[in-house]
């Protein structure tokens, strides 16, 4: 039952935040932080509490609408737990990031918490209909975040985000309905459905439906067009949630369900994933080199990194899968850090145009130091979780086909081009027409330190991630192995 | 008893006609008093003494007195009277026709089974009003209070109306 609390807490907390905003004294902010903190405690307690099945850290099954075969079926293993912790933790970071946002603050925090609630639902639902429900639900509060508190052409960007993701979500919904209806007794229980045999052709089509939703959320080219716009126009907290959570739901879904439900379809579509991913890794990296908006640049790096995740997930070998999982976490921190820093620059000078920025080194040395850290992470310097993930993906790609490995290595080289460009335009050089005169304050510095040290922590102590991820990776490999034989 | 009521009734009818056709408001008011008193006579003749008494006291007494106060504000010059007369002369036929059409079915269709009954004692009226009709009476008192407040509010003098 405590797993349901992980969804209900932020959901109801969001409602409470709506009203708490009237109390003043940052009540809604502390409320949000408290709710997310309690969520973390609940998560830890649930994972330590044990479950009957050794495969899962926590497991809960509650009937909901038995006649429709719908139940609240939640299961958490190391991967889910990491994603849930990420979602709650980044939610907190997002709250602290937007400490200065005062306009309609109650709804803002409500939307923030609701996003966390919905993505929590995605990260642990194993009833596919409930999964699809949370999948669609996730889009709405993020849409609000972009449309109401964004910058620039925020309404258009929010609509783009909504249309892309809602339309892609239909693929998931359709495939889920098909699956549920095709079972002898109507059920959406993923574990039950995984046991049913299906012809390979049907599996491929169903997987295509699932993958459409996941790949669009993952923003792999050519389905990435919404991401740069959404990131550019979203408020900083929105960008953090977008990069840290929403993209990860796509990666998580690809990791979890295709091999579990459609192993033969997975084998059939894996080459497509590899090709899409390799095109995307190069394309995203090259696009990032040409951007003039700092946030857009980072958004395209997200595209590139998520494409690498797609490659890893499609690789179907231990190293690649593990690399994709680690990269998910690493990217969540590094991208959040960069979005946060660029957001902080934007708050100060009101522009993100690389041509107008510059000179942080002179005017704000702390800023420059933290920026260099984020820069190293986006470059996949050894010692950051990003490097670990990418190196593992490359290793796996060598086992699949050396060409894919060469492509990821090339993307790694191009990453230097855009990363040094970002650093050169923002940190180096003479201060631009609008210099940043105010260095990071203690609140901002602690956010940056938390995000930066998380990147380094998981990079230097990889077992923190790799040990909990092993069951999930092994499960994928086991279901593939059953088909390959 | 009915026939005793008919004579004052005829007077009331005439007086009513005079009320609506006079040029001068003062004359009309006098005829109104006449009509009300004639009706009171009708009531007495019908054995409804309570109604008759109320008619004299409140209608002919109080209400008409209020009218008189208001009428005192009217500027009743000969020109105004002539204008009023001309207006009435221009447009009396249409309304008259309409009223005739209205009365036609009433006169034609209304029939009442007549029986002779004893006069109603005032005590019965009191028992009715403060017994079964208590709510109606209370509502009436609310109405009066509301009218009082409304009148006070509307008639209050303001610098800029």
């Amino acid at each position: 039952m405590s797993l349901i609390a992980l969804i209900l807490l932020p959901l109801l907390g969001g409602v409470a935040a709506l009203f708490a905003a009237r109390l003043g004294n940052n009540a809604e902010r502390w409320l949000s932080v408290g709710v997310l903190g309690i969520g973390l405690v609940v998560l830890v307690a649930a994972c330590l509490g044990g479950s009957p099945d050794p495969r899962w850290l926590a497991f809960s099954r509650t009937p909901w609408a038995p006649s429709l075969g719908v139940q609240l079926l939640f299961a958490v293993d190391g991967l889910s737990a990491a994603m849930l912790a990420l979602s709650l933790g980044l939610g907190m970071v997002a709250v602290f990031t937007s400490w200065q946002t005062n306009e309609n603050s109650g709804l803002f925090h409500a939307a923030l918490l609701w996003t966390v609630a919905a993505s929590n639902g995605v990260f642990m639902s194993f009833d596919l209909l409930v999964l699809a429900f949370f999948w669609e639900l996730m889009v709405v509060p993020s849409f609000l975040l972009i449309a109401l508190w964004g910058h620039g052409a925020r309404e258009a960007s929010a609509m783009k985000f909504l249309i892309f993701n809602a339309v892609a979500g239909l693929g998931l919904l359709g495939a889920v309905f098909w699956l549920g209806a095709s079972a002898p007794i109507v059920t959406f229980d993923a574990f039950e459905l995984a046991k049913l045999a299906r012809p390979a052709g049907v599996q491929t089509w169903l997987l295509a439906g699932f993958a459409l939703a996941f790949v669009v959320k993952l923003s792999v080219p050519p389905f990435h067009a919404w991401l740069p716009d959404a990131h550019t126009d979203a408020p900083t907290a929105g960008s953090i949630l977008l990069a840290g959570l929403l993209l990860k739901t796509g990666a998580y879904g690809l990791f979890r369900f295709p091999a579990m439900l459609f192993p033969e379809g997975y084998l059939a579509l894996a080459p497509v994933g590899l090709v899409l991913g390799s095109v995307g890794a190069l394309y995203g990296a090259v696009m990032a080199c040409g951007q003039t908006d700092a946030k857009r640049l980072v958004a395209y790096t997200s595209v590139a990194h998520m494409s690498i995740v797609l490659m890893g997930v499609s690789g179907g070998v231990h190293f690649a899968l593990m690399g994709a999982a680690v990269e998910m976490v690493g990217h969540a921190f590094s991208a959040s850090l960069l979005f946060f820093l660029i957001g902080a620059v934007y708050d100060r000078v009101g522009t993100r145009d690389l041509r107008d920025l510059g000179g942080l080194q002179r005017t704000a040395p702390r800023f420059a130091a933290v920026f260099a850290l984020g820069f190293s992470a986006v470059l996949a310097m050894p010692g950051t979780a990003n490097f670990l993930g990418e190196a593992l993906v490359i290793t796996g790609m060598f086992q699949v086909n050396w060409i894919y490995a060469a492509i990821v290595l090339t993307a790694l080289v191009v990453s230097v081009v855009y990363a040094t460009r970002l650093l050169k335009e923002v940190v180096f050089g003479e201060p631009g027409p609008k210099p940043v005169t105010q260095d990071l304050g203690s609140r901002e510095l602690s956010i940056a330190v938390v995000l930066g040290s998380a990147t380094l922590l998981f990079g230097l102590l990889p077992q923190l991630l790799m040990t909990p991820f092993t069951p999930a990776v092994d499960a994928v490999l086991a279901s593939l192995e059953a088909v390959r034989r | 008893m009915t026939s005793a009521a008919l004579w004052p009734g005829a007077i009331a009818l005439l007086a009513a006609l005079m009320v609506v056709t006079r040029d001068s408001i003062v004359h009309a008011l006098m005829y109104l008093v006449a009509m009300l008193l004639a009706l009171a006579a009708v009531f007495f003749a019908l054995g409804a003494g309570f109604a008759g008494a109320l008619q004299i006291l409140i209608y002919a007494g109080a209400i008409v007195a209020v009218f008189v106060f208001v009428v005192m504000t009217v500027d009743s010059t000969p020109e105004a009277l002539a204008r009023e007369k001309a207006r009435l002369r221009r447009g009396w036929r249409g309304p008259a026709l309409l009223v005739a059409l209205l009365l036609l079915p009433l006169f034609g269709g209304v029939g009442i089974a007549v029986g002779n009954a004893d006069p109603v004692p005032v005590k019965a009226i009191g028992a009715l009003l403060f017994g079964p009709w208590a709510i109606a009476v209370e509502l009436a008192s609310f109405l009066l209070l509301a009218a009082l407040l409304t009148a006070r509010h509307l008639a209050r003098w303001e610098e800029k109306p």
Partner: protein
Amino acid sequence: MTALFWLAAALFGIGLFGMMARRSLLFQLLSMEVMLAGPALAFVAAGAARGDAQGQGMFVLILVLAAAEVGIGLSLYLRLSRIADVSDVDTISDLKG
């Protein structure tokens, strides 16, 4: 007895005629008093015919209604007389469609 009801109807009709034909607001108010007298007579007459107290009870209520109407009507008259020509109500037509 029927004659009394005809009388009541006639009083109502005369009052209505006055309402329609006269254009001075005060005359219209007087006409309304005449109109009210009709039903009042009808109630009293019917009550007398049946020996029922309800006829006079209704008369009392009509009386109250008339009092309220006169109070409001006259205060409206006073109010209107400041801003419009109350001797010709046809000039007051702000609600024209």
